[in-house]
């Protein structure tokens, strides 16, 4: 029972989010039951849909890592959005402009994207360590700077000649193989899952991970134990940046049909923010994040069916995400439910 508690809490928050989301449909005369039915049937109805759900889940499990590793070190790193834009730019750059042999090219493009993401997280990290600038403010400002910078780079330097609406597509040598005909799921999902598992091992299996978690749980104790707090914070930001960069790459070299970045950033925008909800539902655990990402991937993929069949704009799914986060912020709600129904 005690081990199941986090899972129950997450499920409780998800139900509250969906119920309130349904209530928000009523004033506009949408049918919540019809909408949710369309959503879940759309998300899991056929094996094709399940693969699409997994394709949507791929970037989310990574941006969830960014927030989760931050929280583990006591930070509210909400910079995944901007770090992901920079990762996407890095991936476009390496994948479309560097002529490299097959095999190596994919690896290089992935690593460049992770490097770009990590570099973009470096400045908020240093501002936090040196000047004590609160990471919520610095990462949000960096998200907006990245937004404009990425659009600038995409339009001025990386645009596909004759097609201004998007960047040059990734060269075929830099693309992850598609897993099934007609699906947008590629082998990049394996890389994403591997990254999550690797982060899990770093956090619970290495000295660095132990120090990082100690700083998050009890900075005073960490200081007395001789942990270099700034080092732990720096690594928390860098791991998060790499994860977000990889998330950006997954949308460029791991997601047909575009294989490129839209000039409006339309194919990556808000994936970083969505990761926050994923991280919290996954209890800020890298492996829990994978499961939560699949759920949110289902909401996003199924959301399109909700829009088609019930007329409810799929953006409502994002509002539900927010409601879930708010519910998870209030432990008392769950405690009240438990007192009443579960003894």
């Amino acid at each position, binding site marked *: 029972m005690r081990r199941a508690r986090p899972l129950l809490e997450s499920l409780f928050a998800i139900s509250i989010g969906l119920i309130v989301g349904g209530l928000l449909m009523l004033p506009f005369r949408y049918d919540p039951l019809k909408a949710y039915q369309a959503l879940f049937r759309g998300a899991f109805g056929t094996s094709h849909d399940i693969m699409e759900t997994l394709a949507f889940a791929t970037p989310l499990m990574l941006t969830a890592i960014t927030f989760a590793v931050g929280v583990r070190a006591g930070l509210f790193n909400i910079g995944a959005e901007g770090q992901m834009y920079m990762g996407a730019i890095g991936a476009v750059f390496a994948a479309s402009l560097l002529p490299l042999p097959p095999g190596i090219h994919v690896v290089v493009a992935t690593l460049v994207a992770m490097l770009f993401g990590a570099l973009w997280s470096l400045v908020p990290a240093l501002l936090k360590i040196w000047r004590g600038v609160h990471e919520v403010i610095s990462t949000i400002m960096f*998200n907006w*700077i990245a937004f404009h910078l990425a659009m600038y780079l995409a339009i001025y330097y990386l645009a596909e000649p004759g097609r201004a609406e998007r960047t040059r597509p990734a060269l075929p040598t830099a693309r992850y193989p598609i897993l099934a005909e007609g699906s947008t799921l590629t082998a990049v999902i394996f890389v994403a899952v591997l990254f999550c598992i690797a982060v899990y091992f770093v956090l619970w299996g290495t000295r660095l991970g132990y120090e990082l978690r100690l700083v998050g749980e009890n900075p005073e104790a960490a200081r007395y134990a001789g942990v270099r707090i700034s080092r732990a914070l720096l690594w928390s930001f860098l791991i998060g940046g790499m994860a977000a960069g990889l998330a950006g790459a997954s949308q460029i070299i791991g997601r047909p049909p575009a294989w490129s970045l839209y000039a409006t950033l339309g194919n990556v925008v*808000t994936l970083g923010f*969505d990761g926050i909800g994923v991280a919290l539902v996954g209890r800020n655990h890298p492996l829990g994040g994978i499961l939560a990402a699949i759920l949110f991937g289902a909401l996003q993929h199924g959301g399109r069916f909700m829009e088609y069949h019930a007329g409810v704009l799929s*953006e409502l799914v*994002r*509002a539900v995400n*927010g409601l879930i986060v708010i519910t998870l*912020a209030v432990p008392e709600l769950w405690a009240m439910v438990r007192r009443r129904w579960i003894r």
Partner: protein
Amino acid sequence: MKELLLQRLGWIGLTALALGLLTYGLDRVGLEPVSLLEAGLLAMTPLALAAVGECVNEKAGVVNIGLEGTLLISAVAGVWVAEQFGSGVAGLIGGMTVGGLIGLVLGLLAVYGRSDQIIAGIGLNLFALGFTPYLLMSLWAFPGIHIFPRELMVPRWITPIGQISPVTVLAVLLAILAHVLLHHTVLGFRIRAVGEKPEAVDVAGVRVDRLRLFTSVLGGALCGLGGAFMPLAWFGGVVKEISAGRGFIALACVVFAGLEPLLALAAAFLFGLTEGIAYAVAVTPGVKERIPFYFVNMLPYVTTLLVVALVIGRRRFPRTIGRPYARE
């Protein structure tokens, strides 16, 4: 305390000087200082309203980092109310009410639900990110943007220093009022005390929960007014990303000001002015061709970062900020 204040004023002075020089430079390339000031004051208003409100509730120990979401939702709500009543002023009041309600919900969660206020605020922002486009589509059946009839705009006063919105004047007055409230009234004393030592206030027979709830509603309402101001007295329409990070810039103002409403107002003016410059550069012929518009757009965010990084030092926040209070 006095020293700190002087230091901060010094920084503002320096920055103002730098901006003055910049203004002069921009003037040389063909930008008008008057239009700059006009744009700057408009951009200042939502920041100032949100920041002043946040100063008050943070003094009482309640943090609301959902300002961004509050701005977004109240902007849409304000336009809707304005259209229902056929009046821009009604829209402003509507936005303020919605903002106050959001403050009430967050306050209830914080005071009675003992929520993690940062996470609740992040949740509110996420919620608004999805709810705003959903509302726009559901209310007006058009994706992402809504332009309302021009006559609903709140009229501006024409003065020698350009057109000024009455809401801007109201924002300045509210900042002064907030200062007086916090430092020269019994209520303000209690608000400050409740952030520092809620147990003492409780023993003195003041309801900690109600006081915190009150400041949370107040902060939300001011932020909501700022949200409704953007479409109804500034842009003339609402888009799904109308707040564009202003909620967080307002938070930066609060941090910069060390929770002092008047300093927050000054900071808001500073950031507003950079936004004004950005706007002026983006529309002035002869200038806009030379500087890519993407870099101009970064200006407010870069300034915010720089200022926060330079000025932050030994600012002091209330002892129980962001933490729920429970009787022992």
